[in-house]
């Protein structure tokens, strides 16, 4: 298996490349120096302490959380509608509608941002976190649809028919059979939409007005070298949070597979 070993060496090197910036993150977060460069200056936790006393950061986190939760819920709801309609029904214009809903996936985000920006300003709608939500739902929905499509697709149509045949109504069939079986898909859709929204920059940059989100705040801080170490500390916490979140997501995904007796084919998305 020398070929296998070669591949493995390459894959490990590739992982190092992927993790290189992330490994640096805690190093500079605990580095006692304002300049983000080597050599290191010594250990400190003051950047983490500084986070606590930065109210603008707190506002940005709060804004981002409101936006991410709302976008995740709305995008997942729209995703459920789309995925259910696409996997269960045939109707005229199906391809076109599904294509439009999925379009943001193949549209540079800046285009989504400026087109919404133009409309909102044209209509005189003030830019707030709610306008950011409008944009984020748009870009999260395709991911939600992709995840939920596969969840709905793996549903055997006869399961629904069986429940209906055994006396349930359409709605109770949905509640008792379909919803529990696609629940793992719904959880992943919520988590992934949440993460995408939380990390999204350019749409928020255009649509947030005077209510910056976390990425917009971070971007603005890059201009001030003295505030960059705090961002490193913030980044460290974000990495830890996303690892926790992903582990939870992975746990739910595996449990979902175990519950329905499927085979683990591995993988997110």
């Amino acid at each position, binding site marked *: 298996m020398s070929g296998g070993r070669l591949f493995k060496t390459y894959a490990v090197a590739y992982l190092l490349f992927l993790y290189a910036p992330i490994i640096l993150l805690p190093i500079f977060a605990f580095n006692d120096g304002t300049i983000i460069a080597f050599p290191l200056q010594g250990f400190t936790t003051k950047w983490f302490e500084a986070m606590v006393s930065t109210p603008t950061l707190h506002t940005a986190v709060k804004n981002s959380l409101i936006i991410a939760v709302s976008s995740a819920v709305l995008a997942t709801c729209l995703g459920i509608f789309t995925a259910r309609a696409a996997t269960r029904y045939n109707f005229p214009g199906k391809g076109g509608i599904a294509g439009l809903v999925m379009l943001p996936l193949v549209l540079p985000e800046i285009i989504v941002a400026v087109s919404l920006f133009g409309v909102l300003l044209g209509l005189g709608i003030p830019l707030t976190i709610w306008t950011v939500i409008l944009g984020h739902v748009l870009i999260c929905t395709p991911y939600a649809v992709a995840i939920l499509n596969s969840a709905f697709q793996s549903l*055997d149509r*006869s*399961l629904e*028919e*069986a*429940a*209906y*045949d*055994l*006396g*349930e*109504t359409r709605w109770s069939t949905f509640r008792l*059979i379909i919803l*529990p*079986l696609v629940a793992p898909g719904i959880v992943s859709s919520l988590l992934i939409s949440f993460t995408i929204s939380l990390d999204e920059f350019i749409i928020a940059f255009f649509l947030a007005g005077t209510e910056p989100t976390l990425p917009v705040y971070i971007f603005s801080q890059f201009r001030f070298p003295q505030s960059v170490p705090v961002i490193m500390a913030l980044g460290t916490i974000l990495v830890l949070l996303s690892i926790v979140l992903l582990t939870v997501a992975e746990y739910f995904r595996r449990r979902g597979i175990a*519950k*329905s*007796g499927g085979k683990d084919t591995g993988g997110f998305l």
Partner: protein
Amino acid sequence: MSTPAPSLAKASEAERAARKPLIELENIQKYYGDYHALRGITATIRQGEFFSLLGPSGCGKTTLLRTIAGFEEVSSGILKIDGRSMDGVPANRRPTNMVFQSYAIFPHLSVEQNVGFGLRRDPRSAAEKDRAVQEALEMVGLKGYGKRAAHALSGGQRQRVALARALILKPKVLLLDEPLSALDKKMREQMQVELIKLQRQVGITFILVTHDQEEALVMSDRIAVMFEGQIAQLDDPETLYRLPKSRQVADFIGTMNFLPATIAAQTADGFDVDVAGLGRCHIGARQSPGAVTGEVSVGFRPETLTLLYEGQQATDRESPGVIEEVVYYGDMTYYDVKLDGVAVPVRLSMRNVFGRPVLDRGTRTRVAWSPGALVLFR
């Protein structure tokens, strides 16, 4: 077993005639857009009957079953169950239950929860419902499996859960959509017997959809053979096998040899026919289910022919020929014999008997046959 084991024998003709009609189908038509899936199905299925819909894939048998279940709406025609029109009655309010081809066992529920699924709206107490579930499980031979996760079951066990789940609601009709097709051969044969026993035990009308002619013959009281959205023949298994009404039906059910023939004369009780390779013979009216004139063909099953060995005499008629191919099957041997004066060989099957040699190809031989086993086709 306190009750005597139910008999596997099929219902006699008298028993059958005494049964009340349960499902009445009158000129059922079904279109999917331009596609004409059911082309005027008229039939009556009786109380307590084991009824099969048999046909190749795409013949409309599953569509018909799903129409009875209420999953498909008829385009026109009348469907009555127990005298009541089913027009506008959705599947969840029909007195039918279904065993799906994939079994449709709810993967997130236990065996018990699956079996008791349809009892949710049942006004009985939880304890009574649980007893019903346990009885149903016992009936299908899954006593003690109640707590298991549904996805941990084998194919045969899933099938039993699906049966228990449908039968617990005591439907007037149980619909089975190719229920055995996912099982291996041994399991399939075992389940065939169990299904017959179960049907005799509960006395519920079973309607089975299958493409497997052997399965239909083994299990059914009556069989409707379907082609292209129509019922080609509806009869009990023996009649269907012995006296198929068309070449298509004959071909679909088992093997049948066909020889060209011409009608020489119509007599009071049938036809005098000149058959290629067999000569002139008389075929009774019963053996010609379709009205027939002129150029016809004559059909006969492989087992109605016998190969005559040296010194053996035919009890009825015999014709000479040459063995063209020999296929050895263990308990049987199939011979393809080219009768003198006929281009196409006929196939005959012989039970292998100890001490009687299997003949080689190229051997000149004589074939014994009887006009009573012939069927006349258009």
